[in-house]
């Protein structure tokens, strides 16, 4: 594996917090170069000039953290291209400043809460992904209320759901309930389950539709494929 491959692998752990997909798969990595001396330069791009700067900041900062720890990278530069807040974001991340400092006078507070809000949505969307096949296989909603994580066939969707729950500090062990409230982590009671699943489905629809729009707009803006971009 070349250093560049390792950098791309590292970038694939960086997600758009809102769409909950890797920036590589989404086509957001415009280019990725590593010099023989270990200088990595990654350019990121977004679907529009006015994409939300808070999400953009998180992605650039996360990309910096991921790339700068790659074995063989001596120095990392992450550049967000063609965005109205490119300068503030690029300079802020390069200086290791937080969001509030990068947008002094414009932003108050860091983005941890925002990230947590979207992780909770990802947990709900993941709940639909895991539970829908179970319901299709004949289980009822009240069956699901009694299940623990290890009672469910292991799938990529289940692994992903567990990781999102762990990120939030929610119960994610083998013996923990399959269905938990994404805020409190408490098991969802049987009587609350139909509505919980209904909401989970709506959240998943929302994220998927949003991803569809964002990817469509990225394609209008840039007709070349990004590094690691997956087919639409």
């Amino acid at each position, binding site marked *: 594996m070349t250093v560049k491959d390792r950098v791309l692998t590292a970038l694939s752990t960086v997600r758009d917090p809102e769409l909950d997909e890797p920036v590589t798969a989404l086509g957001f990595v415009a280019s990725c170069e590593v010099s023989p001396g270990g200088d990595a330069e990654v350019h990121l791009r977004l679907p529009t000039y006015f994409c939300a700067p808070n999400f953009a900041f998180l992605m650039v900062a996360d990309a910096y953290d991921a790339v700068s720890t790659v074995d063989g990278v001596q120095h990392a530069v992450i550049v967000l291209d063609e965005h109205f807040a490119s300068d503030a974001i690029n300079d802020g991340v390069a200086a290791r400043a937080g969001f509030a400092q990068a947008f002094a006078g414009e932003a108050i507070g860091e983005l941890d809460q925002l990230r947590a809000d979207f992780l909770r949505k990802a947990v709900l969307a993941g709940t639909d992904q895991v539970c829908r096949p179970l319901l299709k296989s004949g289980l009822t909603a009240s069956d699901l209320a009694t299940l623990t994580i290890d009672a469910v066939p292991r799938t990529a969707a289940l692994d992903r759901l567990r990781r999102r729950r762990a990120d939030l500090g929610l119960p994610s062990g083998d013996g923990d309930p399959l269905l938990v409230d994404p805020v409190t982590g408490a098991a969802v009671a049987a009587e609350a389950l139909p509505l919980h699943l209904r909401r989970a489905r*709506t959240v998943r629809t929302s994220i998927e*539709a949003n991803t569809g729009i964002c990817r469509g707009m990225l394609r209008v803006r840039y007709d070349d494929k990004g590094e690691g971009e997956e087919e639409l």
Partner: protein
Amino acid sequence: MYEKDGEKYFVVDAHIHYWNAAPDNWVPGQEQYAKGWIECFYAYHGLGPEHTRWTLDKYMKYSEQDTMHDLFEVGHVDVAIMQPTYLKEWYKEGFNTTERNAGLAEKYPGKFVLNTRFDPRDGDAGLKELADNVARYGCKGVKLYTAEWKDGSRGWKVSDPEAYRYLERCQELGIKNVHLHKGPTIWPLDKDAFDVADVDHAATDFPALNFIVEHVGLPRIEDFCFMATQEPNVYAGLAVVLGGLMHARPRFFAKVMGELLFWVGEDKMTFGSDYGIWEPQWQVEGLVDWDYPPGEEYDDYPRLGTAGKKKILGLNAAKLYDIPVPAEYQLPADAGTPAARDDAQLVEST
């Protein structure tokens, strides 16, 4: 009007613009924002069918003739509701002001409904301007951008005390309909521009007003749905849902429609093309022809029949705006009441 398979549809396009985003209207020093904004719109434009796409030049400033042709000659629209967008920090005369819209609307009586806007940060002067606009143009609706920046303020909430003063004034002036842009936005730094919690409060406190949430809170459709389902006077404005998804992402479009039909219902959804982002013709025709794709993943969504399509395409908005609808376009007596408020349901929060 649109006719298909013997069914006649009265079409109210509840969300259109008549903008000037050409370089002659850019504020010196702000060119990158003015250009970035219209290019961002242009990326949305690219989600429509290829044969409906314009050049960027035309897109920046389309003409009166284009508008009349695209909406009324080929677009099946009977009445179009003009929603202003000011953005005066970037565009010298504004992007799409009440005055600019009025210049067109007044030439074609009966074709347009002219909405105005307010910004509660304008204080008493803004209240006067609002009253003046209503007196001059007979506005029955306002379009609000809660995320707009102004003099160091990073946006506002419709539940703010200052906003309530304006909503009270709206009621006194006879304004019934409050359209809120809750959707893709530009400056969501601190204030969460997609957050619809403020609409929840205002809708409860102003039950006589209708709150139409444009773009259904995209990208947070779920937050909108969970709120709207509990508020009888909250409606879903479909601009961008149709234009951005129906052609480009038909399966996601079907799911979003399914969710809206489930949580909000066909009586409370209004068609909007978002012209000039997209032309109405393909959207009207597409919605009339639309059904869920095959697949059991759509099985438990409510169906949308002819009566529901008639409501969404025009009858709901006609009711909200007291637009007369000829008898041949009305629904049969057993097909429900357009814009009915009574299907809100209480959903306990989890």
